[in-house]
């Protein structure tokens, strides 16, 4: 019995001591607060330095964080389903719009200097080391010998960026839907795999699948910084990827301070180092993993955006409607490899 008592005592101590310590911790901080962040997958590593640097500021001192990362659409549905959060930072705007519709985020969330955006990126081509196929632009993707990997937009919201970029290129030359449709159809004819998410597509490509991967510039830079043996090509015309951020209606004061920091030069510099294009002017940092680390984010000569090129997400999303969407139709008519 004494043995048993000792175990009980130890267990009690194990439970009580940290609780007491935690209590001390939260009461001693000068501006104690809690921020819970719900973000899309890639932010897991990108947010680490941002949070660390925020906690070094006077507003961030003593603020504790709880974080959840996953596929953007899943995260959006989790928040609507009741996952408590102060801030959502997602891959694409429709995922925030759905949270607005559920009444958890104010409809004026995007009326900010950056129009609700926190991080930017570009749709790029990831190629094998040394770019053996000499891929330069979109038209190279329709050549024979190209084995294209791109995540399936049906299961991955983030994959919509990739195919909209291709569509914009097809349309860009002469305008009008038929050209966009013709180009995307031809390009997808070279597809060898349509993985369910952007991260699975990268994993599949790294395992040797295909020779061109449509990806975000941020993912390509992060993979290279992590030592993966790949190159990436930013085409002369491509789509700007814009990741929205929003505070929930009952966000804590600490969360508001955190968002301010994320949008500051210091916060944007941290994101830039992880591969994201800053949403504000005046951030210049060296970016490990970029093609040119000292000039990591050269301006894209012909920059497509969801608002300018497609007239907003409502119209852009219509391309993926299961029964009427032009891109969804191409995908459902796709008999890859017979």
């Amino acid at each position: 019995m004494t043995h048993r008592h000792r175990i009980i005592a130890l267990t009690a101590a194990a439970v009580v001591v940290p609780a007491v310590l935690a209590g001390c911790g939260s009461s001693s901080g000068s501006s104690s607060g809690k921020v819970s962040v719900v973000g899309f997958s890639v932010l897991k590593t990108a947010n680490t330095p941002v949070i660390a640097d925020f906690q070094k500021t006077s507003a961030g001192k003593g603020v504790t964080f709880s974080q959840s990362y996953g596929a953007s659409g899943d995260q959006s549905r989790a928040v609507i389903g009741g996952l408590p959060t102060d801030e959502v930072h997602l891959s694409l705007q429709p995922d925030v719009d759905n949270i607005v519709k559920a009444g958890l985020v104010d409809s004026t969330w995007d009326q900010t200097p950056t129009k609700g955006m926190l991080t930017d990126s570009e749709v790029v081509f990831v190629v094998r080391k040394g770019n053996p196929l000499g891929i330069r632009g979109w038209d190279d993707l329709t050549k024979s010998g190209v084995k294209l990997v791109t995540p399936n937009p049906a299961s991955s919201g983030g994959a919509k960026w990739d195919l909209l970029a291709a569509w914009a290129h097809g349309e860009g030359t002469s305008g009008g839907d038929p050209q966009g449709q013709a180009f995307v159809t031809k390009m997808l004819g070279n597809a060898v795999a349509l993985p369910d998410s952007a991260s699975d597509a990268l994993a599949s490509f790294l395992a040797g699948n295909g020779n061109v991967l449509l990806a975000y510039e941020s993912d390509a830079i992060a993979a290279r910084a992590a030592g993966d043996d790949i190159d990436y090509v930013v085409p002369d015309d491509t789509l700007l990827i814009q990741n929205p951020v929003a505070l929930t209606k009952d966000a804590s004061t600490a969360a508001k301070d955190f968002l301010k920091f994320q949008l500051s030069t210091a916060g944007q510099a941290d994101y830039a180092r992880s591969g994201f294009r800053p949403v504000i002017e005046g951030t210049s940092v060296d970016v490990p993993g970029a093609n040119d680390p000292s000039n990591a984010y050269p301006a894209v000569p012909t920059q497509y955006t969801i608002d300018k090129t497609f007239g907003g997400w409502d119209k852009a999303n219509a391309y993926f409607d299961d029964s009427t969407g032009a891109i969804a139709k191409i995908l459902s008519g796709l008999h890859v490899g017979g």
Partner: protein
Amino acid sequence: MSSAVLGQDTRAVGRGRPGVRLNLTPGSTLGLGVAMLWFSLLVLIPLAAIVATAGKDGVHGYVEVLENPQTWAAIKLTVGQSALVTLLNVVMGTLIAWVLVRDRFWGRGLLDVLIDIPFAMPTIVTGLVLLGLYGPQSPLGVNVANQRASVTLALAFVTLPFIVRTVQPVLAELDADVEEAAASLGARRLTILRRLVLPSLVPAITAGAALSFARAISEYGSLVLISGNLPYKTQVVSVRVSSFIEGGDQTSAAALATIMLAVALFVIVMLDIIQRRVARRG
């Protein structure tokens, strides 16, 4: 502590009323209640919710889902591959169980432990390993990535343990004396296997086959990387379901899930009927 007391109580009451079978004792009433409550919370209520969501659009919802050629191709692929892999498991699983129980060889204990690895491994890890081993950079020179065979391979991997683990204990319990007696009476090895051993293994094999099939039609993680999710070629039902969810179409997702539930139920019932037939004959 209280459960132990209740347990004793049950046995005492049970002993006091021998022969009474249909009237439940207080103890077993409680047991049945707890079991049903647990089963309802975990299984029945979520299932009912899926079926209810699917029924929102009535029959129309189902028709719409089935009319989509891409979905229909995914159903055919998933059910076909699951059936193929289950048949494969019936043969290979029984063989492995036989080897593990009847043969003595070096490394048997290790193999016995390793059989469960496909159960234990997170499916996405399985997917990565399979892609590494049987993908474009295969050290074995076998590349099935983005081919139909990749689906077969991934399903065979994750469902391997089911039949092995259901057949193994039954085989171990089989009385070797009966087989020896049959042999001494002149029965040939094949006859003994066919008339004595296999009939007693049939319930275990069908139970394992049902598990194997049910797991296969719902598989996602292990084949999502290696299959490439190509419509009409390697895209399975669970990927279609996740597409519907991503597209905000909960009703279609639930309808497709309900269809797959019906398929699973049908196969499980069929296997049970086969097992009863065989058992009666044996």
